[in-house]
């Protein structure tokens, strides 16, 4: 990440992601759904209750048979507790809330633990990371494990640590989730991307977060 991009990320009040954080803060306190409850009614002040939460996602869902990421967890609250329609993934509202919740973990180390129940998902994510795919027949690992630091079309190849999602990506001129970024790479190797929220994405997210365990959260980060 360049010096200028870093400066944008560190500028909390007038960095571009501030617009989403303000929306997220407003949504946190807004009552929604048939239950007439806001996030704050149950969780109180986000700075306390959501501290470190984003660093632990994805987690097992309540049914224990699949992983859910932070966005999907927000929708569980919306549908089951607020009795409101689920927010569309990648919508402005969802990204704002997810960035606001993630913001509370800024500076905290990613804290992913694997147990017997989650081990199969980690294995699936690792397999996906190492599996060649698309017309270009490339695996994630070929760029991000073996060739990081080199250039791809003039841009440095990063190690693919998802420390700052949702990110403000200058190329997008807006906020986007890790799944949108994964979709971007999949289109890049000319593979068919999954639909947003697909279990394959969440498993890959889980593996990437586990791979980045201990690294500090930067949500919402700015990337070129």
């Amino acid at each position, binding site marked *: 990440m360049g010096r200028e991009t870093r400066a944008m990320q560190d*500028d909390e*009040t*007038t*960095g*571009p992601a*501030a*617009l989403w954080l*303000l*929306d997220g803060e407003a949504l946190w306190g807004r009552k929604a759904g048939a239950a007439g409850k806001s996030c704050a009614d149950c969780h109180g002040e986000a700075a306390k209750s959501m501290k470190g939460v984003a660093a632990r996602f994805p987690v097992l869902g309540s049914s224990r048979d699949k992983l859910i990421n932070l966005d999907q967890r927000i929708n569980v609250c919306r549908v089951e507790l607020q009795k409101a329609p689920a927010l569309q993934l990648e919508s402005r509202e969802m990204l704002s809330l997810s960035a606001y919740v993630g913001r509370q973990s800024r500076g905290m180390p990613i804290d992913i633990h694997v147990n017997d129940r989650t081990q199969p998902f980690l294995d699936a994510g690792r397999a996906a990371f190492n599996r060649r795919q698309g017309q270009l027949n490339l695996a994630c690992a070929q760029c991000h494990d073996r060739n990081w630091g080199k250039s791809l079309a003039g841009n440095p190849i990063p190690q693919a640590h998802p420390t700052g999602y949702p990110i403000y990506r*200058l190329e997008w*001129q*807006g906020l986007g989730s890790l799944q949108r970024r994964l979709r971007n790479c999949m289109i890049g190797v000319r593979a068919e991307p999954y639909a947003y929220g697909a279990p394959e994405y969440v498993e890959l997210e889980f593996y990437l977060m586990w791979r980045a365990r201990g690294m500090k959260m930067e949500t919402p980060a700015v990337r070129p």
Partner: protein
Amino acid sequence: MARVVVNLPGQARRGEVIEIRTLAGHDMETGFRRTQLGELIPRNIITRFTCSYNGVEVFRADLHPAIAANPLITFTTVATESGTLEFRWTGDNGFSATHTATLTVV
């Protein structure tokens, strides 16, 4: 309602140069892009930003299609007396956003 953020010191010494940072949430659609069906997406940008300090214009900028979304405009002015600063963004399709901030000069 348009979302804008303005960051400036609340207090300054007389004659001090203060930095003002403004951020406006806007797509800044250039008017050169096309949809997947080949239709031109009409231009929709902020065209002008002004800042007046106690009613006197101290900064003005014209914005053009090449400027990125969510434009951040940073400028400086001299703190002469206590008062209000009024920021105004205007643009295509009747876009208008205002923000006022107070500055105390000691």
